[in-house]
């Protein structure tokens, strides 16, 4: 069970049960849908961008504990971040969940996201953890659209 406990850390269980920023946003400037067709996970990421900075972020949708907690933790960390800062965090997060993270250096920057380190032991779940981030990436780089992790 140790790898399972490592995967489902308290912070992940908490964000799954009580997701933060889990709401539709009326005044969003960007709204993007993300799908994982394999398992039916589906989230919408809402962004409000002001002067190149994320002034508000929220999400809505349904999926597994890993995908929902990932979206929730992501949303809780990005308010006030610039597009460049958000993209840099995505790169660090992606390295973390695919097992390529340099522990010493990046864990600091990752903060709460470090809770997702256990995902790298479960290759089938990397897509769950990164769905919200891929959707965010699309939201930061385009107009309203839809992305898929397949």
């Amino acid at each position: 069970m140790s790898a399972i406990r490592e995967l489902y850390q308290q912070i992940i269980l908490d964000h799954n049960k009580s997701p933060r920023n889990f709401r539709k946003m009326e005044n969003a400037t960007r709204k993007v849908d993300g799908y994982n067709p394999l398992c039916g996970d589906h989230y919408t990421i809402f962004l409000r961008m002001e002067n190149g900075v994320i002034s508000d972020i929220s999400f809505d949708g349904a999926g597994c504990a890993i995908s929902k907690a990932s979206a929730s933790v992501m949303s809780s960390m990005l308010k006030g971040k610039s597009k460049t800062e958000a993209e840099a965090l995505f790169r660090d997060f992606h390295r973390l969940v695919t097992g390529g993270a340099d522990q010493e250096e990046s864990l600091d920057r990752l903060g709460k996201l470090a809770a997702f380190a256990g995902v790298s032991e479960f290759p089938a779940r990397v897509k769950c953890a990164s769905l919200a981030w891929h959707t965010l990436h699309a939201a930061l780089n385009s107009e309203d659209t839809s992305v898929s992790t397949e």
Partner: protein
Amino acid sequence: MEISATMSVPEIQQQRVSIAGCRHHFPVLRQWVNGKPLVYFDNAATSQKPQVVIDAMMKYYESENSNIHRGVHYLSERATQAYEGVRVKVKQFINAGHQREIIFVRGTTEGINLVAHSYGRRNLKEGDEVLVSAMEHHSNIVPWQILCEEQRATLRVIPMNDRGELLLDEYERMMGKRTKLVALVHVSNALGTINPVKQMIASAHARGVPVLIDGAQAVPHMKVDVRELDCDFYAFSSHKLFGPTGVGILYGKTHLLEAMPPYQSGGDMIKSVTFEKTLYNDIPYKFEAGTPNIGGGIGLGAAIDYINQIDLNAIAVFEHELLRYATEKVSAIGGVHIIGNAKEKASVLSFVIDGIHPHDIGTILDAEGIAIRTGHHCAQPVMLRFGIPATARASFAFYNTKDEIDALVRGIHKVIEVLG
């Protein structure tokens, strides 16, 4: 001892020992996964292969490999005899009237596509209707959708109740002058429902409508007799029947197959070719263009020999008891709901747990060495019907045991402990 479905309980219990002894015929089951003995409950996705199937394919490649239907040399003769011998075995296995009614395909999906392309395009006109059920696998929906779009025909869906049983009165009402084909799943891969296909085929025939049966999930679990069912087409896959992937069977009645145009074209499906005119081969070869999966066919033949030794009626009785036991134990766990509670079911236990996504269930069970399927099972309309995104599905074969079901129950308790 001969085994039949009408045997007394002590006789069946005696036979169970012999079925339980079959487990060691499957080398893949002798492994540990994540520090636990493998519990393989993903049989509806694909079954495991007994040593005799693996050996038969190895022997073919080691000593008989050659192309069929074309060489005068020794090896080609042997390969042709072995491959055509499998056609006879399949004919006997499903009790078809003649081996020309047995077409080798890649699997159930290709069998259905063959009928949709060949029979469907020839016989469907604008305004006609194809009936499918609400519990079809995508492979028995999408080919008909494409066909209906091309022919400007309509796809209609036979509804089901909350237990996962088709509404037969609705079915009777839906059939009319425009109905040109009924395509039905014999056993649902997502719900386990055994549909009353014999009765449904008789109803369709009373109106002159032919019926295709998707038998992918039925053939491994019960004796199928295509002449008793009187189905017009019956498709199934080798790999769910303890044989290799990449080969399957389409059964079709002679008079229908003979009137149908070819599906794919090329070598082996012709009698003569000139640039002006090609004369097609007789059935079944008319539908078997190109070099087939010969090694796979040989493996399917070995799988059928193996199953015949055990007896499918005994397998059905044994698996029914496994399913009964699993249903009782799993449904007793608080917060767990079985999806699909038809009166007649085979081998499939689909379930959801309150507040826990099936993917998380699958990951935690995998850490316990238990392989189940999670997701929509290529039956998204079924998920939509029950208002759920996905299910966790344990599906059984005769090499599974009650001890393994006990492990599943302990695993589900762990899932709830971690995520509940």
